[in-house]
Structures are given as structure tokens and as C-alpha cells.
């Protein structure tokens, strides 16, 4: 059986690997987690994600910029790729799937990818349509996958109007679906006017929102575990 100290050391190494954008260490430590038989969920949430939370803080404090943020994300994914097949599915009560993409005419997808990563980590099934996605495709994909959530992203004022059309179409076909929109030109007012359920201003805010979401998931998980005991 693995000792508490070893566990703590591995969690710390995972956390630091993400913060220090060190892909190699992230891979090594993740492999070691599996080798010593540690719980993969524990390693993801208390190691990798805990590191990403700190990265979010550093980004907000403007100690980290976009390049660091992306390198950290890659380090997180390097570990996640190894750990994910060994995750036992959590019953969080909010398990869901999400359709995500950048709307037609727009090829800026950094923000979308960060949000996608957060959904990935949180255990959502993510249907990523990519960038420059034809507007009909969102509705089609939502109906095909019966997803709970649709996330639309646009970085330009010229493309953002496409989001309104998608929202209208989605609402007529499926009134229950939740819709989040994001991107630089989007504001809370626009989100409300167009009938979206949520909005994220930019990658920074999307990250913050997504981290909040994961934090609350983490809490749910802890509560669920406490109940079990």
C-alpha cells in the first residue's frame, strides 16, 4: 500500500509540473501514480487541476501570459492523457456532455480550447466542432448527441452575429438546452439580449469560470465521498 508521504510527494510533483509547464515531469509523475497504484481521480483533481488553479491565479495576477498559460495547459494534458484511461467514472450528479466550437468565419480558437480543456478535466464528454464551424452544424450536433450544453465562441464583431442565429435555432428545436457564449466582443448585455444562459468575456474569464466550475465539482465529489464513509 502506498504511504501518505509518497502520495503527497507525487501530488506535489504533478502540481508543480503544471505550474512550471514541465511536460516531461508531468508524464513521469503520472506514470508513477499508476505504477504505485494511486487513485487516478485523486491525482487529476488534487495534483494536475490544483496546479492549473494556481496557473489561473498567476495569469490573473499577470505573472503568466498567454504563452505560459498554453504551455501549462499542454503539461496538464500530457499527464491527463496517461491518467484518464484509469479514471473511475465519478457520479457527480452533473455528468453531462457539451458541444463546443468557434462560429463560422472565425478562426480564433485559443479561448475555446482552454474552455474545452476544463470541460475535459471535469469529466464532461466534449464534442469539439473546431473552428470556423457552419452555423447549422451546432444545432445538428446538439440534436445528434443530445448534449446538455452548447458553447459558442467568437472573437470578432463580424462573426459574433452568427451566435444569435445559432441560439434562436437551438431554442426553437430544443428549449431546454443550456447555451454559453464567449469571446472578446461579447458582453453580459448581449448574452442576455440574445437569450444565452451564460457568458465568458475572454480566455481569462472563461478560465476563471471553468475553474470555479471544477472547484464546485471537486466539492461535490468530496461530499459524495464523505457520505459513502
Amino acid at each position: 500500500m502506498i504511504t501518505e508521504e509518497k502520495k503527497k510527494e507525487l501530488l506535489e510533483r504533478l502540481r508543480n509540473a503544471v505550474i512550471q509547464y514541465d511536460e516531461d515531469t508531468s508524464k513521469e509523475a503520472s506514470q508513477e501514480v499508476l505504477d504505485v497504484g494511486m487513485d487516478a481521480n485523486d491525482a487529476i483533481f488534487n495534483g494536475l487541476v490544483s496546479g492549473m488553479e494556481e496557473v489561473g491565479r498567476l495569469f490573473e495576477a499577470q505573472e503568466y501570459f498567454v504563452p505560459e498559460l498554453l504551455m501549462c495547459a499542454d503539461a496538464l494534458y500530457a499527464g491527463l492523457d496517461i491518467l484518464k484511461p484509469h479514471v473511475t467514472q465519478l457520479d457527480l450528479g452533473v455528468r453531462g456532455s457539451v458541444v463546443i466550437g468557434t462560429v463560422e468565419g472565425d478562426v480564433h480558437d485559443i479561448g475555446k480550447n482552454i474552455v474545452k480543456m476544463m470541460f475535459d478535466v471535469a469529466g464532461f464528454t466534449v464534442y469539439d466542432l473546431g473552428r470556423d464551424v457552419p452555423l447549422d452544424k451546432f444545432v445538428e450536433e446538439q440534436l445528434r448527441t443530445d448534449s446538455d450544453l452548447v458553447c459558442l465562441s467568437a472573437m470578432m464583431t463580424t462573426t459574433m452575429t452568427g451566435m444569435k442565429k445559432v441560439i434562436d435555432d437551438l431554442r426553437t428545436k430544443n428549449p431546454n438546452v443550456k447555451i454559453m457564449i464567449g469571446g472578446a466582443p461579447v458582453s453580459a448585455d448581449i448574452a442576455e439580449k440574445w437569450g444565452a444562459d451564460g457568458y465568458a468575456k475572454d480566455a481569462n474569464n472563461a478560465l476563471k469560470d471553468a475553474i470555479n466550475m471544477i472547484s464546485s465539482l471537486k466539492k461535490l465529489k468530496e461530499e459524495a465521498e464523505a457520505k459513502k464513509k
Partner: protein
Amino acid sequence: MNGTLKKELLGSGAAVVGVALLRGALGKEIAHLETAISIGVDRKLNEDTISLLVSLQKKAAQYLKRKGYRYLCIPPDSDRIKNTFVSKLYPLFTHKMAATSAGLGWIGKNGLLISPDFGPRLSLATILTNAPLQAGTPIEFSLCGDCGMCMEFCPSDAITGEEWSRREPYSELIQMDRCASHKKKSKALHGKPNCGLCITICPYGRKPYKNDPENSFVQTE
């Protein structure tokens, strides 16, 4: 600090190392990383070349990290992993731009970086950083002169013969569609898209023939 890093890289297998200052020439996301370290290794274009280049880049990155500087590695063109987050930033910058700005060479008629010592036979990688390194003097004009060997030998007539200068960065040196269609044909013919004649033929840095070192230049007549 320049000296140590440069020595370390050259000692580990780099053919050339240069530093360029790129103030004001970078996209918004990476504008704070205004110094570029350009690393070139002798181009053999096999697995080893790429892994050497990547390991040199890692070495430089670790050095910068130890000193507390920021950096962003732009990996060699043939080793860019497309689906990473960082890969979104690669198109914001090109290796050749870093190399010419660092004074390592110019862009030849064949559209490749020509170094006085190695000709077009270099594979490049770039690291952007905010470390205050002593930058080299940028090269502004092509030193190809009247030589047009790459143009004469190109099997697809893709080389226009225009000369590069930093003042006119958008003049068309290569007709890319012709070059690509030739590679496609050659792939259909013998399974490999290889051509590279414009590299082999360039007199800059060409090694003497094994059997006939005296007559190392091809006679075009």
C-alpha cells in the same frame, strides 16, 4: 550570458547560434518575448537532426528558466505537433525571420536561409525570450549575386529569380504551386516527395566531392 549559452549550444552540436532583437515585429500574444535565439544544425533531414535540434532547444529553455526568464520554443517545422495548445502560437513567427534578423544569413533565390558557411543546409529552431541578450546585426539584402544555379536546376521551374531584401518582404521568390506539384509527381513516381535540388546545388557551403575535391563546383555549360 550570451557567451555561456552560445558556447553550450555550439558545444552540443549546433552549427550556428544567433540572437535577434524583434522589438515591435511580433504579434500581441508574444510581444513581450522580443528576443529570438535562432539555432541551426547541419541539415541531414533524418530523425537525428530533428531530435538534436529539439534537444538543443530544450537545453536553451532550461538555461533561460534557471535564470528566471520567460521563453517560448518554436519547434522545428517538421516537428510541430499540431494538436497542442502552444501550436496556436507557432504561425505567429517564422524561423527564417529570426535567422536573418540575427545575421545568420539571408534568404536565397530558392527561398531558403543561406548561411555563408553552410549555405541552405541548415535546419532551424527558434526560442523567443525576454532575456536581455546581445543581438547580432540583421542582414538586409541577399548576397546571392548573379548566381542562379538553383533556378537553372529546379526541375519544376518554380524559382522566379527575384532577389530577397528585407525592404520588400513580399516579392515572390518561389511559385509554391509548381514546387508542390513537382513533389506530388515525384511521390507518385518513386514513393517519396524528395527533391531538394535547390539545396544540393547551392555553391555556398557545398562540400567538395569525395573523389574530386579540386573540381567541387558543377560546370553548368
